[in-house]
C-alpha cells in the first residue's frame, strides 16, 4: 500500500485543492471551447471553488429528477444527499445500479450480493484490498466475467433501468454502451488510426473509407488528449507509443464506440507518475459527459478523482457514498482502517 499523498488531515484544505484542480480544468476547456465552439472536450460547467466556499453545505438536489425507470439509490447514498455538494453529479440519477450481485467461479463465491450505485456523469472509485472482488465486479458490468466458462452470475445490473443480464440483451451493443479500459495498456498491433477506428468499423458490406472516419478519429483522439502527440504519426504502429500514450490510445479507442459508461480497471497501475497524472486529468475531463467507474489500488488516486467511492472487502460492499465522506469520515471501522493505510 503506498502512502497517501496528503499528509494533512484537514479536509477543507484537500477539498479546496481538489476543486481548484477542477476549476483549472474548466478553464482549460473554456479556452478550448473559445477556439472551437463545437469542441467536444468541453465539459458541462461545474461549480468552482469560489462559488462554493469550503465548508458550506450545498442545497440537496431534488430527488424527483431521477429517471422513472432507474432504480432507487441505496439508503446510504440517499442519506449522503443531504451533504451533497453541487459540483458532484446528482446521486439520484443513476446510470448504473447494481443490485444483489453474486459472482462465483467454480462454486467459489467472489461477490456476495453487492449493491453499487453509479450516478450519471460521476467518477465512481472502487477501492479495497487485493482479492476483494473489485475487478470481478467491474468485469461483470460489461459482462466480460461470463467469458470464463466456470463463472456463475446472479443479481441485477441496471443500465438506465434495464438489467444487462436480461435475456434479450444485445451483448455487443451493451459493450459499446459500457466501454472498458484495462490494467495493462492493450492496444491492438495495428496502426494508431486503425486502433481508434476499430470500434467504428462495422461489419457492413462496404468498409467506411479512411477519410470518412478521420473526423471522428481526430475527435476522440482530442478528447483522449493524444491528438497533438500522434497527429503526424497516425500510421505508426500503436505499440511504438509509450505506456502512458498507449493507455490514452486505449481510452480513445473506447471513446470511439461512444459509450455512456467507461469501466477502468486500475488504468494507471502500469504507468509512471507523470502518465498517471495525465490519465487522471483526462478522467476528470471525461466525467460529466459520461460516467467513469474506476477500480484503483491507489487510495490517493481515488481521493483525487472520485466523486463517489465504494469500499469492498472480501466480496462485500462495506461502505459507499460521496468519496469525501468515505475517505475522510467513514462510518465503518473497517473502512477507517483501510483508508488510513492500516492494511490493504
Amino acid at each position: 500500500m503506498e502512502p497517501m499523498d496528503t499528509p494533512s488531515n484537514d479536509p477543507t484544505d484537500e477539498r479546496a485543492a481538489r476543486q481548484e484542480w477542477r476549476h483549472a480544468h474548466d478553464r482549460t476547456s473554456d479556452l478550448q471551447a473559445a477556439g472551437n465552439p463545437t469542441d467536444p472536450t468541453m465539459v458541462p460547467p461545474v461549480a468552482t471553488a469560489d462559488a462554493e466556499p469550503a465548508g458550506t453545505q450545498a442545497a440537496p438536489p431534488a430527488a424527483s429528477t431521477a429517471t422513472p425507470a432507474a432504480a432507487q439509490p441505496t439508503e446510504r447514498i440517499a442519506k449522503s444527499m443531504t451533504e451533497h455538494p453541487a459540483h458532484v453529479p446528482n446521486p439520484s440519477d443513476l446510470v448504473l445500479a447494481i443490485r444483489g450481485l453474486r459472482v462465483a467461479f467454480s462454486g467459489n463465491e467472489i461477490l456476495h450480493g453487492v449493491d453499487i450505485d453509479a450516478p450519471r456523469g460521476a467518477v465512481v472509485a472502487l477501492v479495497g484490498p487485493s482479492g476483494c472482488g473489485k475487478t470481478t465486479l467491474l468485469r461483470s458490468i460489461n459482462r466480460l466475467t461470463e467469458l470464463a466458462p466456470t463463472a456463475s452470475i446472479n443479481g441485477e445490473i441496471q443500465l438506465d433501468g434495464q438489467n444487462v443480464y436480461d435475456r434479450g440483451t444485445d451483448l455487443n451493443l451493451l459493450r459499446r454502451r459500457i466501454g472498458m479500459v484495462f490494467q495493462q495498456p492493450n492496444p491492438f498491433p495495428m496502426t494508431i488510426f486503425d486502433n481508434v477506428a476499430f470500434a467504428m468499423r462495422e461489419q457492413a458490406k462496404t468498409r467506411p473509407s479512411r477519410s470518412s472516419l478521420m473526423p471522428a478519429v481526430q475527435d476522440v483522439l482530442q478528447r483522449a488528449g493524444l491528438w497533438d502527440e500522434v497527429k503526424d504519426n497516425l500510421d505508426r504502429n500503436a505499440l511504438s507509443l509509450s505506456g502512458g500514450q498507449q493507455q490514452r490510445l486505449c481510452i480513445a479507442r473506447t471513446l470511439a464506440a461512444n459509450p455512456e459508461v467507461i469501466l477502468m480497471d486500475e488504468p494507471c497501475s502500469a504507468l509512471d507518475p507523470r502518465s498517471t497524472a495525465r490519465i487522471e486529468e483526462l478522467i476528470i475531463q471525461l466525467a460529466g459527459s459520461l460516467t467513469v467507474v474506476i477500480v484503483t489500488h491507489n487510495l490517493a488516486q481515488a481521493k483525487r478523482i472520485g466523486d463517489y467511492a465504494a469500499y469492498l472487502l472480501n466480496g462485500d460492499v462495506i461502505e459507499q457514498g460521496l468519496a469525501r465522506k468515505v475517505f475522510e469520515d467513514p462510518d465503518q471501522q473497517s473502512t477507517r482502517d483501510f483508508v488510513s493505510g492500516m492494511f490493504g
Partner: protein
Amino acid sequence: MPTRLSDRVGVATAYAAGGVLIIAVTVIMSWLVWQGIGTISWDFLTTGPAPGSLEQGVAGGILPALVGTLIVIIFGMLVAIPLGLGVAIFLTEYRQPSWLAKGTDTAIDLIFGVPSVVFALFGLAIFSQGWLAWLSNPVGDAGMATAQSFFCASLMMALIGLPPVVRSSQAAIIGVPNQQREASYALGKGRLTTIRRIVVPGARPGIATGIVLGIGRIAGDTAIVWILLGGAVLQSPPDGWYLPWNLVDFLRSEGSTLTTYIYFSSPAGEGNSPGPAYGAAFVLMVVILFVNIALIRLSRRKIGKR
C-alpha cells in the same frame, strides 16, 4: 563461463549439438550444390525428359517434374490451408462440443504420424471408384477410374499438409494475448469479428510457419506421387497443357514431381543418371528455400510506416 563442472558439460554438449547440426547441413547442402549445379542449365529447367536417352545419362530436362511439384503444392495447400486454419480456430477458440474437439485432436495426431504411403493406398481404393472417374480418367468400360491424376494426388497431399498447418496455427492462436480478445469484446465486437480481425492477424507468423512446414511435407512426399500420380516420369505433358482451358484435362492426367524424378534418375532407380538427380534435388531445395523465405517475409509484414 560457468564454474561448476556439470554446467560446463551441459554448455559443451549444447555447443556440440549445434555444431554437429551445422556441419551436417553444410555437408549435405554443399554436396548437393557441388554435384547438382553443373547440371543446371536453361534447357534443364525448361524441357521435358528425353525418353530413351535417360539410360545413357543424358536425361533431358525436368520441366514436367518441376511443374508437377508446384501443382501438388498449390492444389494441396489450397485445400489444406483453409481447412487447417478452420480446424485450428475450432480447437482453440471454440472447443465445443468437447468430444468433437478431442476427436479432432486425435485425428490430427494420427494423420501426422501415419506414413503417407498408407493414405496413398487408401486413396487408390477410393479414387478408383467409377463415380470418381471425373478426378482422373475412366478405365475402359469397367466402371473404374485410373485414380492417378494431379487431382487425386493433390487431395491426398492436402491431408498430409494439414497437420503442420493445424498445429502451428493452433500454437500461434493460443499465443495471441487474451487481453487483445477481451479488448475487442469490450469494444462490442462479436466472436467472429474478433477472430477475423484480431486473432488470425495476430497469429499470422505462426500460420505462415505451418504453411511452410506443410509445403515441405508435400514437396518431399514420394509415396503419394508414385501411387496417385503415376510413375510417368518419362512422359511429357500434353501439348498446350499450360493453356488455361486445358487446365482441367491436365489436372486429370498423370504426371511426376521432382521427388519421383530424383528417385527415378538416381542410381537406385531405372534411370541411373546421377547428374540430373542431383540437379533436380538442387532445384527442389532452392524452390523450398524460396517459398520459405517468401512466406515468412510476408507474414512478418510491418505495421504502418516507420
